[in-house]
Each structure stands twice: as C-alpha cells, then as structure tokens.
C-alpha cells in the first residue's frame, strides 16, 4: 500500500502542475511562442517523434563514445599514475586544472583542432574531457585505498608486482571505478549537449541542435519537446548506471 502511494504521489503531483500550467495558459491567452501549454508540447512531441528520437540517439551515441574514451584514458592514466608517487604529484594538478576549466571555454579550440567539418569529433572529445575526471580520480582513489593489512599479507607471501596488481589493487579499486563511471555517465551527456551548443552547427544532428534550431524559429513547443526528450534520456542513462552499480557491487561483495 505504501509502495503504491509512493509510486503514485509524484505522478499525481506532476499531473497537478501540468493541469495548472494548461489552465493558466488558456485563461490568460499566453502566446504559444512564449509559453506553450502542455497539450501543444505533447502535440509537438508527437509530430517530431521520429526526428527527436534519432537526434536523441545521436547525442546518446556521442556521449557513450565519449564515456568509453574517458574510461580508457582516465583508467589507464590512473593506473600509470599510481605506479609512482612522483608521477601522481606531477600529473594531478594538470588533471585538476582540466577539470575546473569550463568545457565551454575550451570548446572553440577543440572545434578548430578537430576541423570545423567534424563537429561530432569535437563533441566526443569535449564530452570525454568532462567525463574523464570522475573516472580518473575514482580509479586513483580505488587503487590507493587498498586495505593495508591485505597489502602486508601480499608482502608476507612475496607477491610479484603483477600478482599484486591483478589480485589485489584492481579488484580493490572496482567499487570506486564503478562509482566514477556512474558520475561520468551523467557528465558525458551534459558535456555532449554543451559541446553541441558551442559547436553550433547542424553537422552532428544531436538533440542540442534540435533545441537551437527550434529556438531560432520560435517553435517553443518543439524546444520543450526536445528538452523533455533530453531529460528522459539522461534519466534513463542515470537509472541504467545506477542499476549496473548495484549489480556490480552485489557481485563484488557477494550479497
């Protein structure tokens, strides 16, 4: 009963807000270009479903490619960095600087480097830069937070460096890596959308471009429909990674 109430309550609340929104727009004769009523947004969504879905697919694909690249470079660099303390000291400030620099600020540069004809490449690189840090720092933290007594045990039995890496440090790091990947998955979508805005061309045909395009034509209902698609997609990715995290941790811990 409680579970049912918990599930229904947010739906009812959203329904209530939509009803207020719809009524207010109709009663006050708000122009549709300024604030379309939910019914107009639904109509725009239905009319553009195909193009929004394919644009969403493009954005999602770019974000996931960026995530894969970030995992490869972030995880790899973390592995190299933890081999020596000096190396970590040397690289960490640079990695942090990269993380705190807003992606919009470096986007124009990356667009130039990747070639103005290939906005999709620039978008993937930029989204990967955004997704890089949580994976890098999660992996570094995981690799360096091994139980010191387990470490002593490996010393005691004379473990070789390879054994220590594969049988102790990598498995110890796994929960941190999964956590980092979850955070990075959300950031990669944000990064892809921001990069698409900055690239500002239709070449990549992602969701952000649909928002820009509809905005330029004052098709506000379509803008809302694109934003909704984006929100749903990001929520879907978040839920999927949360599910993967739970399953991964369950497998790791055995319960």
């Amino acid at each position: 009963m409680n579970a049912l109430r918990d599930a229904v309550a947010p739906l009812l609340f959203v329904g209530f807000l939509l009803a207020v929104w719809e009524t207010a727009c109709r009663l006050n004769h708000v122009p549709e270009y300024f604030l379309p009523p939910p019914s107009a947004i639904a109509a725009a969504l239905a009319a553009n479903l195909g193009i929004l879905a394919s644009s969403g697919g493009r954005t999602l694909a770019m974000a996931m490619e960026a995530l894969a690249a970030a995992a490869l470079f972030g995880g790899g660099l973390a592995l190299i960095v933890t081999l020596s303390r000096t190396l970590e000291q040397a690289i960490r400030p640079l990695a942090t600087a990269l993380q705190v620099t807003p992606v919009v600020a470096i986007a124009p540069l990356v667009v130039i480097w990747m070639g103005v004809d290939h906005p999709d490449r620039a978008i993937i690189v930029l989204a990967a830069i955004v997704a890089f840090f949580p994976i890098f720092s999660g992996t570094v933290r995981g690799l360096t937070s091994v139980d010191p007594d387990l470490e002593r045990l490996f010393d005691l039995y004379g473990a070789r460096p390879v054994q220590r890496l594969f049988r102790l440090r990598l498995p110890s790091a796994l929960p941190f890596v999964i956590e980092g990947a979850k955070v990075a998955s959300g950031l990669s979508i944000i990064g892809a959308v921001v990069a698409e805005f900055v690239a500002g061309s239709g070449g990549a045909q992602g969701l952000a471009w649909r928002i820009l395009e509809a905005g330029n034509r004052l098709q506000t209902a379509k803008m809302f429909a694109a934003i909704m698609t984006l929100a749903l997609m990001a929520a879907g990715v978040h839920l999927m990674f949360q599910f993967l995290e739970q399953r991964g941790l369950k497998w790791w811990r055995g319960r």
Partner: protein
Amino acid sequence: MTSIASLNSVEVDYPARGRALGPFSINLASGEIVALVGPSGCGKSTALRLLAGLESPTRGEVQRTAARGETAVVFQAATLAPWMSASANVALPLELAGVNRTESRARARAALARVGLAGAEAARPAQLSGGMAMRASLARALVTEPKILLLDEPFAALDEITRRALADDVLTLWTETRPAIVFVTHNVEEAVYMASRVVVMTGAPGRSAGETSIEGPVPRPDGFRTTALFRDAVEAVSANLGRGMAAAA
C-alpha cells in the same frame, strides 16, 4: 630448543611518532607459544611485524630462520578480500607462491574443514559472522603449514564466548603442526590461557617489563581458568603490567 626468530635490542622510530618500540629483545624457540601483553600503543604490533619480516628496525637486529611462506600472520580484523570466496581467500597464499589452482583449492578446503568451516567454501566474507571470518583468516594462515604463526590481537573484535572457543581451537590446531606462536593481546587472562610464556611490555616505547612462564597441559583442560596455577599466573602477569605502566609514566 632451537631458536626460530629473535629480536636483539631492537628499536623502532617512526618519523611522526618518535620512538615506538625498544630497546626490546625476545627469543622465540620453535614450537613454543608466547604471548605479548602490554598497554595500547606500546609497540606490540610493531614487534610482531619485525618478527614477520614486514618491517626493519631502526637499530638492533632481527634474526629469522623461517623461509618465505613459513611465516603467517593473523590480523586484528579478518582481512579477507571481499571479492573472493572463503576458499579463494584461503588458497591465496598458495596461489601467490605458484601452487596450481586445483591443488591450492583442495588444500584450502582442507584448511577450512580444520577450523570448522567445512561447507562455507563458497561463502563471501560479507556472508560470514565475525567469528567465522576470523576462522577463515586462521585457515588462510595455516594453509601454508607455517613454522611461525603471528597473531595480532586476533580475537579483539569478537564476543567473549566466541573468543574462548577460538582460543581453544587455536591450541588444538597448534598440536597438529606445532608452529611457534606469538600472540599479541592486551587481555591478561587470554594471554595466560593461551601461552606457555607471557612477556609483558611497558607503555610506549615498549620495553620488556618481565616474563612469566605458565605450566600446564596444552590444549588447556576444562576448568583451567579456575585453577590456582592459572590465578597465580594472572596475578604475576598483572603485577608485571602494573610495574611496566608505572615505569613508563
């Protein structure tokens, strides 16, 4: 009796803490059970790590005749890898030493059976109770049939009934292969119950504050805790401990 490990006037200084141990000497004969008792922070665990060869002293000398794989340590926590099953955890020392997987798993199963954990091979550490996890940890220490077994307050996190049962189990297991055991604790009665020799250490930096030998059969017979022998030994150790604390203060 031949010496299997000894610390000769060792001192250990830590950069941030200063002197942690010493000068401290102890000689461990093969097959004997020695308890190290002392207040918290007196360097008991440091002494144990020196005996294990996991650390080097700042000054003094450590002698160890045990080869690699002949020394085993049980820590205060069970220190099992959570991502591995109980049998994989126990097999780990063998696999690190290059024993093939089939043989090491079979020996791990046998070791688990010896500590009363037959049937729990596939369980993960998170599924084991505190006492069971400590038994698995003990099985991992015994699987290599060590000549020195170093126990660093292994029962500190367990309830009284479990720790008494484990103390008896350790003594029974000792009769099978007779490793030399060094047992660190701050519980005087536990030390007297387990050991044939109790070395008391002073407060930090730990030095020897006296030594008490305990006669009597091992494993301990029922009711050993009520005998005059046991009570007298506890009194003697407690007196040493009191002197040690006073000397450090």
